[in-house]
């Protein structure tokens, strides 16, 4: 194992973790359907 591999693993891990969490949150927002959640607001249009 190379010297300093922990630093490299930490750096790459942080980037992957942040992107996965961000995607999970934003895709969760997109998957929720506000048309159903917001009852009848605007439906009658």
């Amino acid at each position, binding site marked *: 194992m190379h010297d300093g591999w922990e630093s490299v693993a930490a750096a790459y891990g942080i980037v992957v973790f942040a992107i996965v969490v961000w995607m999970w949150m934003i*895709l969760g927002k997109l998957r929720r359907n506000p048309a159903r959640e917001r009852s009848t607001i605007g439906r009658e249009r």
Partner: protein
Amino acid sequence: MQPVFAPRTTRARVSPRLAAILAIALVPLSAILAFAWAPIATIGLGEHGVQYDFPQKVFYWHVPVALAAYAAFAAGAWNGLLYLLKDDADYDVRSYAGVHVGVVFGTLVLLTGSIWAKAAWGVWWNWGDTQLLVFLTLYLFYAAYFVLRFSIDPGRARAKASAVFSVVGVALVPLSFMAIRIADTLIHPVVITSDGSRLTGPMWGTFAIGVLGFFALSMLMVQLEVAAKLRASRGWCASDDGESSIDSESRSEPATVAHA
């Protein structure tokens, strides 16, 4: 009657599908190539003159993420400028998303850079490095964007103040990019100098793939956030089958509620 202030279109400027494919393919590929293809370079002297070679691999994601952060800030500023010119709330949402993604990437730049600095320099931060200070200034400036934005009630006044702020801040991007080249103390590693590149072929290839991948990822993240914001502000415009609205043109009246 005062016109409704809300975003009208949801058409993406760049195909989100293409951006997703590029990001999913190129970002992991750049990591694989960084370890399997690119040779280990010897840049950076660590504590007590000890050379730390392997942590240089952080560079293959650190720099592309930084460039993607610059691009996201620039996109935020460009859309802020378009908002000021056209008074279209759609640009306000796009400007907000650009700055938001830029700050997310900027956080990653600071974290990965600090990790590399600890391995290479022996310290987490170096206050004598012009590049670090300018990037930190840029980052904190755009972090303050959210303080400004959410201290004003939704509407035109907030959109205009946010747009002006985003446009002013983008002046720091070229300054940050040039800081390591105009500074007297060259502590921060400079890869591409006036004398040419210090990278070999495999290093260049890996770096370029990383840049393309993270640019695509930042574009995708901006578009997804724009879609989520638009959908949240005009809930009843969303299709019932759960299809993402970022590729479709709005067919109904805009909401009267605030956005972003």
